[in-house]
């Protein structure tokens, strides 16, 4: 009697959970077991003609990020696929032998029978929000919004990543771009995640915050609009801020400093006045330098702003408090007299007094950077980028390029915030007593109101 022989074809079944169960059956041509220090790797070689390279690439990317189950003689067991072990036996798109490794979690040496852990229920991440919208000024953090996250059946760390221009925090204090949460007993207890936008790029800032762990990925869409910063009166600095700090920090962006930008000296001021046609150190009207009109000055302003330096009546901070807004403004120079009295440029409502001032170091005054080595020519405009990413308009007056607005710098050249802003970039008002006691660089807004700084 003749008996036909039918050989077995080993069929493997994989399944994974991603918005429902997915199953994949494939024919195994060969399989081997290898061991690493911690687990077994079960290498299954696919039979010929089963996958195209395109299909393989799709599957490897998908399964490499998922928690998958392998059907064994003892039911479904869980394992992970190592996508880096995908490979072709040849360069053919079809018909090549393809191998990949399953990382099978088992005790070392437990080859026979293959001991696999029982499958767990699918990991679940619960996110309280799926979309948030923000607005912010360029280079300034937005208001904070929150969402909550919790997880069940979690088998690896939960990673939360913020895209460029966004920051997240687990305590509303320390802002980072990545947070890692370790599950305890497979559970991530419910917790609040703080989100803010902080971008130096003007325009729409749409992205998503990824909440990822093995087997599950939840994205939160974040839509933001970053508006251009229009400077009003700018920030008020003490004179110490014009100097290189003890740690080497500078208020001038090092990249811009390399191009010639600096806090102006007495010589720079003298050249500006000379270029403006004014006689030094005598009373002159300053009408070419001041903003015209009565928006930023009181009635009686004689400014015409023909040189487009846009000097506004930003007042100053004195020992007694904030005074003189729309009535006068003082801008520090880095130079000081032999008796350590700092120089400043003083602008008044209608001139008539000295255009140069012997100031005090603990006064709060504006800062205008200048570049006496600019390549621009008279009347040309340009830009300057601050340490915090703020972009300023500039104007060239004869051979000098000046900021066309007061400085609103919040950071030192090393990226740390100037005293007056906390480590998260939020304005912190400095008391009169503390302000007077400062001997290092500090900053404030007139009346501690940021509405006086930006439009």
């Amino acid at each position, binding site marked *: *009697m003749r008996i036909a022989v*039918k050989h077995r074809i080993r069929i493997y079944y994989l399944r994974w959970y991603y918005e429902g169960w997915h199953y994949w059956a494939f024919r195994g041509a060969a399989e081997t077991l290898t061991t690493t220090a911690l687990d077994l790797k079960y290498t299954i070689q696919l039979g010929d003609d089963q996958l195209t390279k395109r299909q393989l690439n799709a599957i490897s990317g998908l399964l490499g990020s998922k928690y998958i189950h392998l059907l064994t003689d003892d039911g479904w067991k869980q394992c992970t696929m190592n996508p880096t072990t995908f490979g072709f036996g040849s360069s053919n798109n079809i018909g090549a032998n393809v191998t990949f490794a399953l990382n099978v979690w088992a005790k070392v040496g437990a080859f026979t029978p293959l001991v696999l852990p029982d499958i767990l229920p699918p990991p679940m991440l619960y996110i309280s929000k799926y979309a948030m919208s923000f607005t912010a000024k360029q280079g300034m953090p937005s208001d904070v919004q929150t969402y909550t996250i919790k997880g069940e059946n979690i088998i690896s760390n939960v990673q939360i990543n913020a895209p460029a221009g966004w920051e997240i925090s687990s305590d509303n204090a320390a802002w980072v771009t990545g947070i890692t949460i370790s599950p305890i007993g497979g559970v991530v207890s419910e917790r609040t995640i703080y989100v803010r936008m902080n971008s130096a790029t003007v325009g729409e800032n749409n992205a998503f915050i990824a909440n990822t762990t093995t087997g599950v990925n939840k994205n939160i869409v974040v839509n933001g609009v970053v508006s251009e910063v229009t400077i009003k009166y700018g920030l008020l600095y003490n004179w110490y801020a014009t100097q290189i700090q003890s740690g080497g920090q500078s208020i001038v962006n090092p990249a811009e400093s390399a191009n010639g930008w600096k806090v102006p000296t007495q010589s720079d001021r003298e050249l500006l006045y000379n270029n403006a046609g004014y006689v030094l150190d005598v009373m002159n009207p300053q009408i070419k330098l001041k903003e015209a009109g009565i928006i930023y000055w009181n009635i009686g302003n004689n400014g015409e702003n023909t040189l487009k330096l846009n000097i506004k009546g930003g007042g100053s901070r004195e020992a007694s408090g904030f005074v003189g807004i729309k009535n006068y403004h003082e801008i520090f120079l880095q130079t000081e007299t032999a008796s350590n009295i700092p120089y400043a440029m003083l602008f008044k409502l209608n001139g008539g007094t000295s255009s140069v001032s012997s100031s005090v170091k603990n006064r709060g005054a504006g800062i205008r950077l200048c570049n006496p080595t600019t390549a621009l020519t008279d009347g040309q405009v340009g830009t300057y980028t601050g340490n915090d990413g703020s972009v300023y308009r500039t104007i060239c007056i004869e051979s000098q390029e000046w900021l066309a607005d007061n400085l609103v710098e919040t950071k030192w050249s090393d990226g740390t915030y100037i005293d007056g802003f906390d480590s998260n970039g939020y304005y912190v008002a400095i008391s009169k007593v503390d302000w007077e006691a400062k001997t290092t660089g500090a900053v404030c807004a007139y009346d501690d109101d940021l509405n006086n700084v930006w439009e």
Partner: protein
Amino acid sequence: MITLEGIPAVVIPDSSPAETSYLVATECPVIFTFQKKDASILSVTDSGNATINHDMGVIGVNGGEILVYDMQLDKMVKLTIVSTVNGSVTVARSFELRLNSDWKYIISPIDTPNAYLEIRLKINGVYEETTRRFSPSPNGVIEADISSSLQSKIKMDKVGAYVNVSDVEVNQSGKFQLEYRERFDGDTNAFTVEPHTWYYAYAVRSKEQGCNLWEYWNGKFFNLFDKPTYWLGTPFDVQFFWKPTKNSITFERKNYDASGGLLSTKTDVLNNAGKGYLNSIKIDEAQIEAICDYIEIKLI
């Protein structure tokens, strides 16, 4: 008197010398045919009444009745005895009575009142505790189906567990002998032994096919498939009936590839404890090559 008229044996066609199969299937009527007749009719003469000459002594009593089988009518005719002597009986002649040579035998209810057939089976060397009773049909024929007794010996558990080279399927095959006797009121008959040893196997046959598994008497594999398929990885064996007249059997297996090339040959001398039984022979998957396409097996 009840005589054995037919047994379910089959002379195997074209066997030389002639060989008879005594192997029957359990899941099918297994019928032994008997005939009750108290005398065979030798001749019938017209004596005004009808005088029936027969092969027995005195049948019936005067004024009593006998039954005569009329083969032409295929029915029993009831007749009244006028006189009875040794070797003949005269019955009353009526107008309707057709007197002819188709009268074949006599049944005398007076001589064997409440007659029936009793069968005793000896299965695998042990008498059954209860006997079987069969009543004659009106014309005295008894078709005794003993299959239910054999079915009671069948168990679904195969002995063969795909471990040994061969196993004797004692749960699904065996042997038996049959004894019978006529019983009636006041009888003293002893059992008559049917002289053959019979064999049974768990199998299904239709009544039209007949219960005798004569095709398998000489070692044909117990399988209805022309070309059975061995799905590697699943349990697989083949069975055959080891006829009692063969003392030694060797099982031969040859593996071939798809182009008919011989890959390997293996022979096994089977355990002769399986004589008279179905035997299961395992085909070991480990001995089948990866390129094996088919296997040829035979019994030597």
